[in-house]
């Protein structure tokens, strides 16, 4: 029995290390058993000194153990065994760079260059190491030497990046233009690097790129102009220098279209539309249609009806099976038509496309067109379009129609039914304000008030303000104060500070203790703020806070007071 037990003991002593050996060194590394992983990698390298994955694993483990120095002897053997391996050379360089000083780094880089004379990697690695220490000029000299020796365009790209880092913009532009000439796909990298050029240095760089650097320089300049919020000029440049090569031009056009849309401006969106329109001409079939739909969307978002229409007219999609992209582009287009006042055209397009539109899109477009009718004073057409629609959005629009007709009780009913979340947030807020007004006014019908409120939607706000003042005369004190506050706010938004001040003072005087007084005080304070009458603004805000401490406007008033006094930044 004792013999069996000692045999088992011996077996376990022998077998357990074998089991450990059988585990993958990578698994040991993942388990955090770094010392064991290091042993396993070393054993693998003893068997095959050129095992690159074992070398890389040993580097990782030794770095974490803080014993990188012991990698040296394995590297020496690996270099001897496979002297032309880029991976081994790079690892050797990295290790020496981490452990030793300048001289050793230079020696290892030189050995690497000598053993693989066509490789750009030693120049890149050495230059990066120098640059990371702030020695940019030495780094650039290394890349320049590499360029002279092997003439590889990739080194030009590194050189350009270093020139950017060194803020040597002229050289950066020169090198990027050369790099892009050899590889047009680098246009994006070039413009990303050069977009950091400070404003006062941009003009000479643009001059160089557009006059001395050939088409590649123009491509870069076009993208730079897009990035610097001048996408229209960028498009003109690019359009004049597009290559005939069918593989290069689409890449450049797509890149420019994306850069232009990043500006988020109408000009940028229009430039994107033009680039995609040109792209569509280079493509065939569904790809061309998709580009035109994207262009239509861009033109529509930019408010360019003609551009959007031109694109949509050329899209060869069957409406019965229209693509989602086509429907989305058409939805945008119809909305833009309605907003631009082309209500009939919008309504006709909507009738044609309604079945293909997503239900939510159709609902919103219906409301948009109804709004457009309202703005033209054609309430009946708006009501007819919405029909018996009982969605919250339709109730909201019907509420506005009733309000503008002076049917205040009906308007209140529809606004209540719409609830607080229908349609966009800004409109929901305005609706809430109108509900407050209706609550104060307390009359069922008042056509003059409705007409005056409709007047605020148009471009004759001053007249609408005067009409509101007249409409307020036949109301009780609370209703009068409410209508005058709305009139004062409208005059203020119109920039008519004198009228706004007079009307708001009248509102406060007509019901000084009433529920509208804090709102009128606040509006008056904002009028003073925008007129630069800071002391009077402070006086009004303090009065609001101290006189109506329970008003919901107090936090807002405190915030404005902080801003007026310069206690918080203006944002």
């Amino acid at each position: 029995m004792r013999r069996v037990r000692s045999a088992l003991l011996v077996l376990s002593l022998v077998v357990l290390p074998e089991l450990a050996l059988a585990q993958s060194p990578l698994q040991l590394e993942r388990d955090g058993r770094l010392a064991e992983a290091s042993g396993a990698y070393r054993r693998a390298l003893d068997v095959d000194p050129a095992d690159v994955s074992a070398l890389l694993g040993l580097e990782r483990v030794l770095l974490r153990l803080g014993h990188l120095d012991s990698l040296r002897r394995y590297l020496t053997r690996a270099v001897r065994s496979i002297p032309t391996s880029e991976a081994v050379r790079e690892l050797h360089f990295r290790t020496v760079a981490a452990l030793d000083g300048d001289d050793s780094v230079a020696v290892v880089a030189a050995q690497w260059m000598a053993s693989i004379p066509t490789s750009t990697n030693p120049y890149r690695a050495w230059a990066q190491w120098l640059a990371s220490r702030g020695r940019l000029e030495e780094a650039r000299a290394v890349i320049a030497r590499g360029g002279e020796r092997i003439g590889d365009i990739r080194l030009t790209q590194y050189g350009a990046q270093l020139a950017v880092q060194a803020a040597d913009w002229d050289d950066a532009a020169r090198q990027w233009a050369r790099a892009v000439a050899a590889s047009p796909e680098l246009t994006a990298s070039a413009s990303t690097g050069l977009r950091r050029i400070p404003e006062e240095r941009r003009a000479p760089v643009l001059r160089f790129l557009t006059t001395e650097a050939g088409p590649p320089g123009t491509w870069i300049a076009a993208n730079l102009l897009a990035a610097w919020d001048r996408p229209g000029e960028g498009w003109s440049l690019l359009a004049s220098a597009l290559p005939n090569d069918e593989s290069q031009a689409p890449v450049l056009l797509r890149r420019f279209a994306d850069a232009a849309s990043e500006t988020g401006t109408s000009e940028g969106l229009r430039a994107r539309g033009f680039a995609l329109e040109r792209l569509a001409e280079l493509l065939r079939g569904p790809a061309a249609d998709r580009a035109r739909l994207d262009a239509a969307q861009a033109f529509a978002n930019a408010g360019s009806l003609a551009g959007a229409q031109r694109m949509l007219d050329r899209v060869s999609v069957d409406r019965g099976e229209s693509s989602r992209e086509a429907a989305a582009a058409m939805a945008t287009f119809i909305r833009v038509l309605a907003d631009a006042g082309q209500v009939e055209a919008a309504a006709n397009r909507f009738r044609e496309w309604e079945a293909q539109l997503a239900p939510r899109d159709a609902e919103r477009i219906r409301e948009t067109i109804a709004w457009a009718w309202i703005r033209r004073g054609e309430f009946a057409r708006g009501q007819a379009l919405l029909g018996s629609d009982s969605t919250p959005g339709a109730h909201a629009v019907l509420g506005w129609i009733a309000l503008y007709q002076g049917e205040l009780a009906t308007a209140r009913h529809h606004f209540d039914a719409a609830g607080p979340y229908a349609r966009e947030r800004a409109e929901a807020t305005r609706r809430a304000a109108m509900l407050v007004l209706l609550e104060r006014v307390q009359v069922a019908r008042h056509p003059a008030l409705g007409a005056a409120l409709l007047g605020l939607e148009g471009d004759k706000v001053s007249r609408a303000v005067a009409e509101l003042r007249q409409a307020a005369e036949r109301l009780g004190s609370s209703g009068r104060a409410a209508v005058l506050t709305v009139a004062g706010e409208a005059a203020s938004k119109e920039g008519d500070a004198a009228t706004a001040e007079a009307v708001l003072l009248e509102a406060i005087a007509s019901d000084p203790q009433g529920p509208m007084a804090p709102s009128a005080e606040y509006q008056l304070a904002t009028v003073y703020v925008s007129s630069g009458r800071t002391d009077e603004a402070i006086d009004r805000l303090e009065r609001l806070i101290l006189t109506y401490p329970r008003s919901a406007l107090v936090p807002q008033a405190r915030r404005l007071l902080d801003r007026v006094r310069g206690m918080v930044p203006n944002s």
Partner: protein
Amino acid sequence: MKRRDFVGAGVAACVPLAFGDLALGVGGRRSRRAPWLLVPMDERQTNHLKAYGVLFRALKRGATGEWLLNYRGGSFLVSDDPVVLREAALDGVHVEPITASQEVDVRGTIAASNMDSVPLEKAPRVAVYVPPNTAPWDDAVTMALEYAGIAYDKVWDPEVLAGGLSDYEWLHLHHEDFTGQYSKFLLTASGSPWLREMVRVYERTAQALGFANPADLKKAAARAIRRYVEDGGFLFAMCTATETLGIALAAEDVDVAAAFSDGTPMDPDASARLNWERSFAFTGAALEPSPSVASFSDIDGHQVNHAVRRQPLGAFTLFNFSAKIDPVPAMLVQCHRNVIPDFYGLTTSFTRARLRPDVIVLAEEPGAPWVKYIHGNRGEGTWTFFGGHDPEDPQHQIGDPPTDLSLHPHSPGYRLILNNVLFPAAKKRELKT
């Protein structure tokens, strides 16, 4: 006057007065209004930051006040005064008029607990060290002072070197790099207009004041600031100013600046040659030799601008000091929150191993090798260092818009800053530790 010596009579005077009221305050007198307004600083407070401003301005007008350490989040008593009530209402600060009997209850609670009452006598004159150029980063202290409505003056190297600091009881330093290396942004942000302007202003100032370069100018300013503290000033510093002030003082005769700053590279043996006895808080630090790494030394635990050494943010915990035995640190950590989310700065934290043994740690990240908030004495004055840039913008980047404090009226991190502003108003008495 020696500012860190609290006169025992201050607190002693309050307690008999209170208990005198208690003796009288039986029966019908329980409803009599006390001559105080209570400014609670616990969760009931509606604007913690502006409460400091209300109190500070009251002191400035000659009112008296008391800081009730550890009582309802470090509340205040301030003389009952219509102006205080008006300002509190305007600023949205919650104040509670109290009766004489409630005052007695408050004082009884304080006497029986780890709490204390520190009289506040005079609002300190406040100076903020700010360069004339506009840097693309905000200054948490300036923003806190502006938001709370606490008046301050701006000073910079010309005023500091002309001895102007003696006009102030409290001095704040923020992002300044006292090694004169432009926060070591010269290589990473080269070409930026703000940096060019900074270099121009610093070089011109150095020249005008007779120094060879900004690095020498900054060392001289650091020495003047040390003299200010040794003569009894209160120094509060945040972010890079904490670490670089220490390095500049320790490096009086050692070149620690990169060539882009003073024309010569850093002394390769600089770390070994530093004399930390000349500094406030740190010792034995190793300097960062690379001019392109925006880090100064291993004092900072987080190394935000170093890809490999950068540490993630955690949360720091305030120490609970004995209010009666250690009123100064207790004042500095008064807060309605005990654990506060950390925030980065060019100097975010202070490595424990680099702190001098006499440094008082006010806040730390438990288990981490760094601390956040430290305090100490030098000569007749005191200094307090708070790591990080902006307590409500943990990742603050160059060019970010300034923080709008009206969106953070309860910020615990900003409260710690304002504790420091109010701390010099406390009446002096003998410290027990």
